[in-house]
Structures are given as structure tokens and as C-alpha cells.
């Protein structure tokens, strides 16, 4: 069910109404039913996958939690009779049991994810290798339905499991409650990948109707629809045309395509998250923010603190920290310090752990080499920036004026361009095409397309460009205003007539200028495919 479909409007509207009509103690049950109904709408056949993840993670977490409880109780009971070594040995034995439960469950769930999402990618690569060695035998691609939001809910469930394993989160005893955490429908499309602790607190709570809060939530939903329907779904026609024909659209076209795609990706992804967070807010549920004005970042490192925050947090918490603190990495750290000296030796394990994170991030984004190259390029640039940090510091010490507004603007522009270039890998979904396109930009001889009317022949009219320019400027203006705090909160302080004019005006903009209905390709959110 698309967020932009009438079906979803009806579904969300009816849910919101029912949510506040039924006794509050049943609200979370209604959400669970609605989430599964939403999932079933998207394809009944794939519901087994989410059920499997829910059951296995819930049960494993329960076992791990019970084991930890038993361990505490046993140690308490035998406190007097055991020496330190015996206690340590007992703890290690119990931890081993918990680790085995964790490993088995991770293997199963990551295995499901790997099979449904990456099987054909693996088969294609194996076939490629077989071809290289002149082997005639070929593996047949498999036909597997990709369950809705599998990357998101699997990671969310795994995050919970690891938290329980680490003891930072008690295991949820109620299967239906846990099922809601995994399947909560606004998060299924494109996240945010939420952590159990903060989300569960509001997900299971009873929420009294608060007109102002509902209104605030719906205002954010409306803003999300503006971004998605007025900007993202309009610019998609040009992006599709430009990236759809590598032979015809190169050079300056590649530059146009990557800037357009970067605008589309922002409007699409942040718009979708606005709808998710806003709808949750209307039901009293707090979902973590996923963006913090990412295109105002002055470096790639800062960008990854402000873009898709929940995914970055997840990889930091559940990949980077475990990898960097693993016994293997500890041994490597010792080795590198001994062989490469203190400065380099300290950095190498960090870089290697980062490499693992970015490789995993690339793989998570999709079953294709372009995503892997994209991830590793991000890693390479981040590490290079890290290495060049002392050089920057010296530069700033020598030229203190370089910290002024002009320079900051330059760094923001530079970072935006870098992000545009990296996004090309996502755009073309092919490493060769992407590199060809990137190389074609500096060698371009077709800059005239920017002013000779060619831009009007890629699926957008002059009016479309005007709407896109207006929409983009509005998004930019709101982002600038957000630096001084919540825009909605400031609007809420204005007189009623102003508030009404702002929100009803925004509604009319979406209604009249939204790219929806016959003649438009109502697209699923880009991040849904990840």
C-alpha cells in the first residue's frame, strides 16, 4: 500500500479515528492488527517472513533473558560458596550459552535476509566466475518474493536481540507486543530503524486524545506529502529519462541527472519519514528523527551524522563496536601497534572496523556491486578526510579568515557536490555506467543543454521546473528556519487566521500541484527498495 494511495489515506484515517475511540488499553492491539493488515495488503505470501523473524527473535531473546536471570539468581544463591574464579567460569559458561542462542538466531535471520535479497546477486556472480574459467555450467536464478521492509524490520529485530544479549534491554515477554515492535507499519516502508527501548516506551503506552498533538502530527504528515508529491514525484520524470539512456544523456546531462536525483532522494526519503513520524505523533507515538538538515553538512563525516541517522546508529552500535572490540580486532590492534608504530597502529584497527561497516552498509542498500562500491567509496573518502585532518588544521591556523560564512558556504557546496557524485552509483545501479558518467562530466561539451531548451525535453515542462524551483526553495527555507527551532512550534504561536492560512495553503499546494493521478507515475519511496 503506497503512502500516496487513496487506500492508505482511508486506512490511516480510519485507524486514527478508531485509535482514539477504543479503550486506551487496547490501542497497541489495534496497532498490531493494523500493522498486519497493512502487511497483508502488500502481499499475503510474504507475511510468513516477518512472522518467522518475530517468533525466532522473540523466543531467542526470551531464552537469553531467562538465562541471564538464572545466572544472576544462581550467583546470588551461591555467592558465599564460590570463589572469584568459579564465578567467572560459571559466567563464561552461561555467556557461551547465550552467545550460541544469539549466533543461531542471527544466522537464521540474516540468512533469510541474505537468501531473499542477495541469492540472485550471488548466483549472478558465481555464474560470472564460472564463465571466466570457461565453465559451461550455470546456476539458475531463483524466484523469491522480496518481503516488504525486510531490511528494516530484520535490523530492528536484531538490534533488540543484541540489546537483550548485552543486558541493556530486558526481554519482552509478550509475543504480541514484540510483534508490534517488529511490524509497526509506518516504519515498514523505509524506517527509521528504531531501537526497542525508546520506541517501545511510547508504542505500548496508553494515549489520551490531544487535539493539538494530533494536529501537530498531521501538519508534519502534510509537509511530508508536499515533499513527496510536489517535488520528488514530479522530478522523477526527468531523472528517469536522463538515467534511462546512458548513450544519449552524458556530460552535462550526468551533472543535471545527479543534482536532480539528489533533490529527489532528499524530498522522497525525508518526505516519507515526515509522514511516518507525523502519523506516529498523531497517535502519541514518538519515533526517532532520521535527518538533521543533511545537505547543510560541511563534510561527508558530518553528512553521515545527519542523514539516515537511524541506519548509521544501527551500524555503529551493532557492527562497528562489536567488530572493533572483538578479540580478533584486539589482536590485530596489538599487532599493528607493534609493527607500524603508535600513530598508524592505533588508526589501522579503526579503519578496518570502518571498512567492515561501510561494506555492510553498501550491501544493506542493495544486491548490486554499485552499492558495494558506493559504500567503499564513502569509507575511502571518510578515511582520507581523517588522514588530512592535521593538514586542514594547519590551513585554518594559517588562514583564520577561512572559517567565515563564505568558506562555510563553500564547504557546504563542496559536500553537496560530493554527495551528488556518490548518489550517481545509486542512480545508475551499474558501476561501469556510473564511472563513465562521472568521467563524462569534466569532459562535457554539451553545456548548452542548460539553456538551449533541451531541459524541456526530458519529461518536464517550464511549469514543472517553476513548481520544482518553488518547492525546492520552500524546502530550503524551512531547513534554514529549522536551525532556530521547530517551525511548526513557531507557526503554532501565530494567530489562528495565520495558522489556518499556512496549513490550508500547504494542503492546497499538495492538492493542486502534487504529481498524482493518471498521467503521473505514483512511485514507491526510493528507500523502500533497500
Amino acid at each position, binding site marked *: 500500500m503506497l503512502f500516496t494511495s*487513496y487506500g492508505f489515506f482511508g486506512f490511516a484515517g480510519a485507524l486514527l479515528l478508531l485509535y482514539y475511540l477504543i479503550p486506551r488499553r487496547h490501542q497497541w492491539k489495534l496497532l498490531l492488527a493494523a500493522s498486519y493488515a497493512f502487511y497483508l495488503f502488500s502481499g499475503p505470501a510474504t507475511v510468513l517472513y516477518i512472522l518467522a523473524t518475530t517468533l525466532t527473535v522473540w523466543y531467542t531473546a526470551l531464552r537469553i533473558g531467562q538465562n541471564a536471570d538464572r545466572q544472576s539468581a544462581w550467583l546470588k544463591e551461591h555467592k558465599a560458596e564460590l570463589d572469584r574464579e568459579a564465578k567467572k567460569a560459571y559466567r563464561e559458561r552461561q555467556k557461551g550459552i547465550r552467545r550460541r542462542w544469539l549466533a543461531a538466531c542471527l544466522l537464521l535471520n540474516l540468512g533469510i535476509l541474505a537468501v531473499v535479497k542477495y541469492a540472485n546477486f550471488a548466483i549472478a556472480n558465481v555464474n560470472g566466475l564460472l564463465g571466466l574459467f570457461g565453465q559451461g555450467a550455470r546456476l539458475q536464478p531463483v524466484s523469491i518474493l522480496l518481503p516488504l521492509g525486510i531490511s528494516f524490520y530484520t535490523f530492528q529485530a536484531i538490534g533488540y536481540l543484541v540489546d537483550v544479549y548485552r543486558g541493556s534491554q530486558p526481554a519482552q515477554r509478550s509475543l504480541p507486543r514484540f510483534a508490534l515492535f517488529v511490524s509497526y507499519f509506518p516504519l515498514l516502508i523505509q524506517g527509521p530503524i528504531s531501537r526497542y527501548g525508546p520506541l517501545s516506551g511510547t508504542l505500548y503506552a496508553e494515549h489520551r486524545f490531544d487535539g493539538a498533538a494530533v494536529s501537530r502530527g498531521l501538519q508534519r504528515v502534510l509537509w511530508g506529502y508536499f515533499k513527496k508529491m510536489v517535488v520528488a514525484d514530479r522530478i522523477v520524470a526527468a531523472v528517469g529519462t536522463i538515467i534511462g539512456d546512458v548513450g544519449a544523456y552524458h556530460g552535462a546531462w550526468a551533472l543535471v541527472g545527479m543534482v536532480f536525483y539528489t533533490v529527489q532522494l532528499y524530498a522522497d526519503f525525508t518526505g516519507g519519514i515526515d509522514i511516518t513520524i507525523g502519523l506516529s505523533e498523531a497517535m502519541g507515538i514518538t519515533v526517532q528523527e532520521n535527518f538533521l538538515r543533511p545537505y547543510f553538512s560541511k563534510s561527508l563525516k558530518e553528512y553521515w551524522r545527519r542523514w539516515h541517522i537511524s541506519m548509521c546508529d544501527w551500524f555503529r552500535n551493532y557492527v562497528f563496536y562489536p567488530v572493533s572490540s572483538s578479540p580478533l580486532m584486539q589482536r590485530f590492534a596489538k599487532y599493528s601497534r607493534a609493527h607500524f608504530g603508535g600513530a598508524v597502529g592505533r588508526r589501522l584497527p579503526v579503519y578496518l572496523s570502518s571498512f567492515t561497516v561501510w561494506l555492510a552498509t553498501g550491501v544493506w542498500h542493495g544486491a548490486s556491486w554499485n552499492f558495494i562500491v558506493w559504500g567503499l567509496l564513502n569509507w575511502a573518502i571518510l578515511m582520507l578526510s581523517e588522514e588530512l585532518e592535521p593538514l586542514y588544521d594547519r590551513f585554518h591556523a594559517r588562514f583564520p579568515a577561512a572559517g567565515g560564512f563564505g568558506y562555510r558556504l563553500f564547504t557546504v557546496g563542496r559536500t553537496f557536490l560530493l554527495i551528488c557524485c556518490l548518489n550517481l552509483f545509486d542512480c545508475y545501479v551499474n558501476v561501469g555506467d556510473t564511472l563513465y558518467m562521472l568521467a563524462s562530466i569534466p569532459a562535457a561539451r554539451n553545456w548548452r543543454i542548460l539553456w538551449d531548451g533541451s531541459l524541456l525535453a526530458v519529461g518536464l515542462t517550464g511549469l514543472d521546473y517553476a513548481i520544482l524551483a518553488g518547492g525546492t526553495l520552500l524546502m530550503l527555507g524551512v531547513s534554514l528556519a529549522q536551525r532556530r527551532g521547530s517551525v511548526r512550534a513557531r507557526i503554532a504561536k501565530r494567530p489562528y487566521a495565520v495558522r*489556518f492560512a499556512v496549513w*490550508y495553503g500547504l494542503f*492546497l499546494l499538495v*492538492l*493542486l500541484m502534487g504529481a*498524482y*493521478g*493518471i*498521467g503521473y507515475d505514483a512511485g514507491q519511496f526510493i528507500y523502500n527498495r533497500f
Partner: protein
Amino acid sequence: MENTAKPKKILRFVLSALIVAGSLYLLQRLLMPKYVDGIVEGAFVAEYYREEKDHDVIFIGDCEVYENFSPVKLWEEYGINSYIRGSAEQYIWQSYYLLEDTLRYETPDVVVFNIQSLQFNESQNEAYNRMSIEGMKWSPAKVGAILASMKEEEHFLDYVFPLLRYHTRWSGLSATDFEYLFKTKRVSHNGYYMRVDVRPAENVPEGRPLGDYSFGDKAWEYLDKMDALCREKGVELLLIKAPSLYPYWYPQWEEQVEAYAEEHGRRYLNFLELGAETGIDYTTDTYDAGLHMNLSGAEKLSVWLGRYLQEEFALTDRRGEAALAAEWEEKISAYNAEIEQQYQLYGLERKEEEP
């Protein structure tokens, strides 16, 4: 303080709701196509509701009825009070629901249905769906017409709130959209679309062979429903095939319709085979090389059909009914005025009526 706050809030809410409802209504009126110039066919269906509903004959069908028969001629020659409920590429399910809609208001003696639309088993074009359905007043018939017509990409809600469908028209609004915001003008003559110009039929292509000549199940289903509805209401159903040379009418199709008419005890007239009787001359009586009749062709067909209707269905001459005759006088004036206008428009000289 609280005593004044609550009524103020209620007043604010009511005012806001009124502004929202009023502005959305205005926007919808403004953005919906007006069909008063250019493609006027979209206005035909709605025009019916302004009529006095006491017709002897109702024509139902697509352009092969609304361009090929002239109710004015039927009145002038035989005193038959008729109306055409037709629109562009009107599919048979739309014809059925338009008939159902019509029978809510009146019970004519005869319904004349053109069977060309049997060739379609699914709606082909959303624009034609819109032109056939949007003008209908809300009723179970309209709901049925929408549900039966919608293509995969269409939504019922877009028919309930056409603003959702026409939301992009704001960039193409013309003075006409504002002029006809709250009014409309007659664009047909009792459903008849007039053209006086001439384009002879030459080199009409043969129909290309089809893999399967059978009409679809859905098409038959709605013909059956039409037949049953007419029986239920005691209305005669006359099946016709208008003399349009294209789209090609296959002999295999003809056989199926003949068999159906015989099986159901319905009269069936194929005007393609009645050229000698009607006097249709494809060098002078069509304005688009044989697809549709011009005024001359439509009047010839009407003269012949009027006689047939009178003889076969014993329709009475109502020219003696003063009120009805007065109404028709006005319609005839408008009809003649448009003839004059079109003759001027196309730079044609009007031939004197033969005695």
C-alpha cells in the same frame, strides 16, 4: 473567560470548515472541463436533466447515434418526441446504466440501441469514461456505471471528487472556464450533434481479419441486462447498426446480433444494408469520410426511421400537444440557427429544400 472561549472556538471551526468546503467546491467547478466549445460531447449526458422528460423514443449509444439521427427531424416529420442519450465511444455498460438512469425519470415507448459498442469488452479510454459518466446525476446507476467502466489506473474517489482528477488543469484554464463557472449552454439538439460539412467516403478500408469474432461476455451481459430492463419496464427495444462505414462491421458480428435479436424477439435494423431505402449517399451525407453522418445524412435516416417507428410501434403524432409543440418550436429555431451558423462557418451554400 471560558464561557466566551468555547463559542469562539466553535465559530472559528465552523467558519474554517465553510471556507474549506466553499473553496474546494469553487476549485472543483473551475477546474472541471466545461465542454462548451471544442469537444462538446462531454456535455451531452448532463443536458438531458434539463429536459421535460416525456419522450416517446430514447436513443442510446455512442457517436453512431448522436451524430446520425436528428430528433428535430423526427418531430418535424412525425411528431415523435425523442432524445439521444449518447456520448463519445459510449461502452455498452455505460449505455445500460444511462438507460437505467433514464428510466428513473420516464418510460418511453421505444428504446433504440446502436449495437456497435458490442465490440468492446472493456473500457478502452479513461477520457471516454469521463465524458460518458461525469454528466450523470448521482444515483445507483451512476455508481454502477463507474464501477463497470473504471480502468485499472482509475479510482472511484476521482469520480466522487473530480477535483482530484482535474487538479492539474489550473495551468491550462481559459476564459471559458471562468465564464461557465456557474452556468452552461446547450451544445446539442436533444442529444444530436450537428455537422453540416461534407467529406465524401472514399477508399474505406476493409476490416483486418480478427483472431476471434465473438463478442465478449461482459458486452453480452449488458445487452442481456438492457433487454431485461426494457421488458421489466414494458419498453420496446429496437437494436440498430448505424450506417457508419468505419469502424468496420464484420459479417460475423452481424450474424451474432441477428441471432441474438431473433432469440430474444427483438427487432434489428442494419442501416448499412438499408442504403437504398434510406437514400444515404456517402459522397454527400457524411462529414468525415463515412464514419458519421452529416446533417443531410442524419435527416435522411431520421425520416426513414421515423416512419418505421410509427408503423412498427404505433407511435402517435404529438404535434397537436400545444405545450410540447411550443417547446419544440424553440428547439427548431435553435436547430435552424445552428445550421445557418455552420453553413457560414464552413463556407457552404445551403441547398433549397426539395419539394
